[in-house]
């Protein structure tokens, strides 16, 4: 359904951020995009959703295809019309507006007759939000703002949801709750989800397939279960190294094991 073929992305025609990314997102699938800071995960999402054009960025090589149509040159408004919505990182709520007003704007591009019904759908996913509907969204807590931002995207009935680091800065219980809701939304609305996460454990728990990015390249990909079992992933992203053995200082190096994918 969504197919990125070897894309290169540059900012300001000078800074090369993505150096040939290829990935696929099938219908109704949840795919995880993992990697450390600066790997280029958010840039990949912005390339898909068209927000790159608002930041002096462009796809300089390769193509992004959605249902057979090339979308890499389109602006964010056109791509959103096709049902691809990005939930940006950092919980960007429209601060001075209330939570409900944020949600209503999420559904702006959809027919206005269904707004009430869509709001009810979002409140069904996030019951806590119903109590906070008239509060100024800038003053909500981090978890509540994340709910607002996700609910806002849900209002647009996306066919593809690009989730950027939903667990950033949230308490572990809140993270679990959010992930359960993502899974439920994927199941009930048949929305595909491309999930960018640093929290590899949480992401691989709900994803079917995963890609690991580093320095603008995909260095590893595979079904989520095999990624979770991969020795290198376990050590570098899940923090499961050999315990109990005595370590000598001469052995401590940045990478104890050579990363098998380089």
């Amino acid at each position, binding site marked *: 359904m969504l197919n990125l073929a070897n894309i290169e992305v540059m900012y300001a025609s000078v800074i090369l951020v993505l150096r040939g990314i290829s990935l696929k997102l099938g219908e109704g699938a949840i795919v995880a995009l993992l990697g450390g800071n600066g790997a280029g995960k958010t840039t990949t999402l912005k390339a898909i959703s068209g*927000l790159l054009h608002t930041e002096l960025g462009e796809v300089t090589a390769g193509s992004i295809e959605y249902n057979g149509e090339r979308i890499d040159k389109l602006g*964010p408004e056109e791509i959103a019309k096709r049902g691809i919505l990005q939930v940006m990182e950092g919980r*960007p709520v429209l601060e001075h507006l209330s939570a409900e*007003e944020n949600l*209503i*704007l999420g559904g702006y*591009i959809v027919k206005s007759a269904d707004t009430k019904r869509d709001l009810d759908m979002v409140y069904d996913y996030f019951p806590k939000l119903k109590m906070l509907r008239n509060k100024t969204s800038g003053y909500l807590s981090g978890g509540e703002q994340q709910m607002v931002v996700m609910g806002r995207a849900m209002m647009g009935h996306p066919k593809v949801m690009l989730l950027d680091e939903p667990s950033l800065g949230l308490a572990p219980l809140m993270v679990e709750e959010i992930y359960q809701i993502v899974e439920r939304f994927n199941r009930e609305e048949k929305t595909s989800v491309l999930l960018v996460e640093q929290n590899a454990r949480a992401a691989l728990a709900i994803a079917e397939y995963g890609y690991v990015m580093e320095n603008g390249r995909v260095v590893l990909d595979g079904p989520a279960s095999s990624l979770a079992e991969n020795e290198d992933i376990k050590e570098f992203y899940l923090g499961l190294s050999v315990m109990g053995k005595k370590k000598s200082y001469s052995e401590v190096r940045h990478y104890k094991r050579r990363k098998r994918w380089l």
Partner: protein
Amino acid sequence: MEVFLQLVISGLVNGSIYGLVAVGFVLIYKCSGVLNFAQGNMVLIGAYIFWTFKGPLGFGLLPSLFFGAALSFLFGMIVERLSLRPLVGQSILSMITVTIFLSLLLEGVTCIMWGSNPLSKADIFPKGTINLGFFNVMIDNILAFCFALIVMTVLILFFQYTRLGLAMRGVAEGHQIMQALGIRVKKILTISWGIAGMAGTIGGIILADKIGFGLGLSHIGIAAIPAAFIGGLESPLGAILGGLIIGLVESIVSGYVGNAAGTPAAYVLLVIVMLFRPYGFFGLERIERV
């Protein structure tokens, strides 16, 4: 007492005019982040367009008003498209410079099209006085004030309760977020300039009823801008209240102290308010969560 009431009434009428022009100013700032120093000249051109329909073309009052408002809406949109669209995201200094030069340009265009002499009078509100017991009130003042109040109320209701008004408030919060939701931010910016042009023009028409159709109409921009700051640059309601406050202060001070003391008094008030409430009375403070 009678003198005081007369001053209050005339202050409120002036204030409602400042309020209308200030609303346009605030709207443009809120949505596109541009301080539009050409607001006064947009008022001037809009009022002149109205005069053209009413005077030489001989239309009736309401049709002239309608066409004046519609064409000034269009005019606002054209100004945005041509001069401000390329400036989105640039430094605020460039924006201020461009709008200041835009005001000079518009003044020149006005002179070319209509000449620099004052235009012939066009009566808008019926003249006359009513006797309210212990003092007289001019009918045109009352009608002007009511008309301005209706327009301002419609604008406020539009922002608060309509879908497009909500979208405009959203654009004021963050362009990129709105683009991510699929909303055409550029279209909304253009519409906001159109509304600003229209609101300013209506204010200008009311003013022209009092002082005539001349180039002096553009100087209202200078009085409307402190109104916008006092009310808070992000609040249309604040702009209206700011305008009324400035109108009242100006009128009362020039009545009791002296004619020339009115405008400086408004600016003194601006300084005092800025000292204690730098965001204006209704301005939106930056939301900081601790």
